[in-house]
């Protein structure tokens, strides 16, 4: 589904990603953890085709991000760490815009928008300007926009930040449901408990390098992810 091979990306002298290789299969909920500035966002952006990378290859459903970026983008949804969306639009105008870009029919988008807007309690404010939304409401809107075109791969950068407990729970449930339907989810987070409970796979990144990856239970073994993370962080 998503194949990352030897990907490297530098910003000047600093290597943000150093020979990263990961394989994400259909049905995977893959957690991606690391300290601030470790290179999580850079990798997510490289997969989403937002930034270029220096070496390696990224394939999504056998399409190369470098050679066929538009083809890849049709299959994925990306949610950034900060939900900055067009404040001049209303919620529904933004969702319609995303629907138009992904060529979602009017009937289908109505069904999906109503479903997710009800779920995340955003239906009443869809006609309101986004500028009147709180941070959490914007986050919910971005999540809905990522779901209305039924992506095969979801890339999310700290998706639980700003969500209330109910929305957070519903999002996790949605993740599970999407993966049961064959989608793959790759997300970064600092909430290690979420990874332990939700993800079947995990990767830990440190200074641009993957230092641990695999099935969550195999990686953490008989300790907690927090202990493992602290151990890795304290290693020179």
């Amino acid at each position, binding site marked *: 589904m998503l194949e990352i091979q030897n990907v490297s990306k530098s910003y000047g002298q600093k290597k943000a990603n150093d020979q990263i290789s990961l394989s994400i299969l259909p049905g995977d909920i893959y957690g991606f953890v690391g300290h601030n500035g470790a290179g999580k966002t850079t990798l997510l952006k490289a997969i989403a*085709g937002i930034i270029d990378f220096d070496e390696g290859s990224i394939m999504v459903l056998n399409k190369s991000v470098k050679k066929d970026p538009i083809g890849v983008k049709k299959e994925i949804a*990306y949610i950034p760490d900060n939900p*900055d969306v067009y404040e001049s639009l209303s919620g529904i*105008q933004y969702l*319609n815009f995303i629907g*138009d870009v992904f060529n979602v*029919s*009017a009937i289908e988008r109505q069904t999906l928008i109503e479903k997710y807007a009800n779920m995340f309690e955003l239906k009443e404010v869809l*006609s309101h300007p986004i500028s009147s939304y709180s941070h959490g409401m914007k986050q919910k809107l971005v999540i809905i926009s990522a779901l209305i075109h039924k992506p095969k791969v979801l890339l999310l950068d700290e998706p639980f930040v700003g969500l209330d407990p109910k929305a957070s729970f519903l999002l996790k449930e949605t993740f599970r449901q999407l993966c049961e339907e064959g989608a793959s989810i790759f997300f970064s987070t600092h909430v290690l408990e979420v990874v332990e409970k939700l993800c079947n796979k995990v990767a830990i990144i440190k200074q641009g390098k993957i230092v641990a990856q695999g099935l969550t239970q195999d990686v953490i073994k008989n300790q907690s992810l927090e202990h493992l993370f602290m151990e890795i962080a304290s290693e020179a």
Partner: protein
Amino acid sequence: MYLKLVKVFFKENFSLKRLFGINLKNSKAKTIGLMVLMAYVLVVFLGGFGFMFFDLAKLLNESDQLGVVVSFAVTYTLGLSIMMALLRSSGYIFHYKDYDILAPLPLKGSTVLFAKLSVMLLMVYLTSTFFVIPIFAAYFFYNGLSFFGLLYAVIGFLLAPLIPIVVLSFVNLLITKITQRLPFAKLLNIVLMFALFIGIFAMSFTINESSVNPLNGQIDVISGFAKYYPLVRFFVEAVHETNHLSFLLYTGISLIIFYLYVVGIQRFVRKTNQSKQNAYINRNKKVTFQSNSIRKSLILKEFKTYFSIPIYVLNTGLGVVIIFALSVASLFFKSDIETVLVELTSMNMSLVPLLLVVFGFSITMTYTPSVSLSLEGKHFWILKSLPVDPFEVMLSKILFNVLLVVPVSVIGVLLLSYSLEFTAVEGLLLLLSIAAYSVLSSTLFSFVNLYFPKFEFNNEVEVIKQSIASFISVFGGFALLITLSFGYYWLNKVLTYEWCLLIIIGVMIGLNYLLFIVLKKAARKQFINF
């Protein structure tokens, strides 16, 4: 602490990266190109503006009215202060974006406010200097340099913006307060601002028909203004007559009013910054699930963005307003135009090419493609992550600009054709030329933004008015227009004006075709590098 704050605010507004949107250290070629361009513009501007004022000062000196030149300096500074206060006082004083950062710090409210006002004043000084230097150069050239004259001129210039900022900041707040809770608040705000600017514009450019120098027409307006605003008189008396009492009055009044303002509005400033700017929300508006093509959707997004930023419309919509106003005016001033026509015919000049120059200047002032990509700013991740070809994004920005210009121009051409009795061929040539120039300038503007983007900004005005892309586009646009005019001039020596225009239209279409091919590759390459 005040100086530290000013330093931080100044860096935030005027650092080279902030001004140019690029790190100049990383690109030598861009730096050299920019420096050459800026030097060229500076020389042309100071030279042109200086020439007009030396000409005016000479005339006024002969009639012993040289003091009027001084009133020009203060009036221009006042004008710029008025514009700055109207457009920026909300962001600098009443609703500044870093309030949540500054409020918890152990700083006196007056220190923060004074630092904010200082940066705003620095902005006025920086822009006014371009006008004031040639004016004073002309004045002192004919009057002779004196210690007190120069001292009073400098201090007077520094104090000139204080009272306009005090008054107009309240006007700005009032307009925002009145309009923000109404439907179409932004549109109302735009209309009010346009009405205000056009009023000032029309007043200050009442051109004296008999004079070649347009400044002569402004003398009466400025003299009239001085009657109602005595500080202009005090300033002129202080500089021109070395009247110490007038200087004291001017300085005292300006400083006392400004001091009272700073002390008096502190609580009010805290209150406005704490209150949320609640926009009007239509709670009865129905949610519709309408589907559109990608291109239409992108263009609609541009329209929404455009009309949600009043300063964007005010700065890039003036050209369109001028086209419309001139076309409507042609219906009412038909006889005056006919007089000009007779003069032109005697000079062997055709009206259509001259009108095209006016249209061209107005179209060049509509420069949205040179800033619209930058305005994506922190939202740019959306377009970059969506399955949309970067060329399609750029094309939507070009088409949006063309849609702003062409429909109004069509109405303009129809009105002009009626009032000036153009033939169908003349009308068609006008339309084709306008459409071709509009597409060409929009495409070139989009190239400028592609290579000189500025995605980091606190306020849109930094992109729309102060970015290097807008600067290059407007002056580059004028250069393109002048080049095309020269092309016409040479062709017209051997061909009729109809054939000249047809050739120029053909050249513009051909050039545009080539530019589109290049833009396709360039957009894809640049987007991934941003």
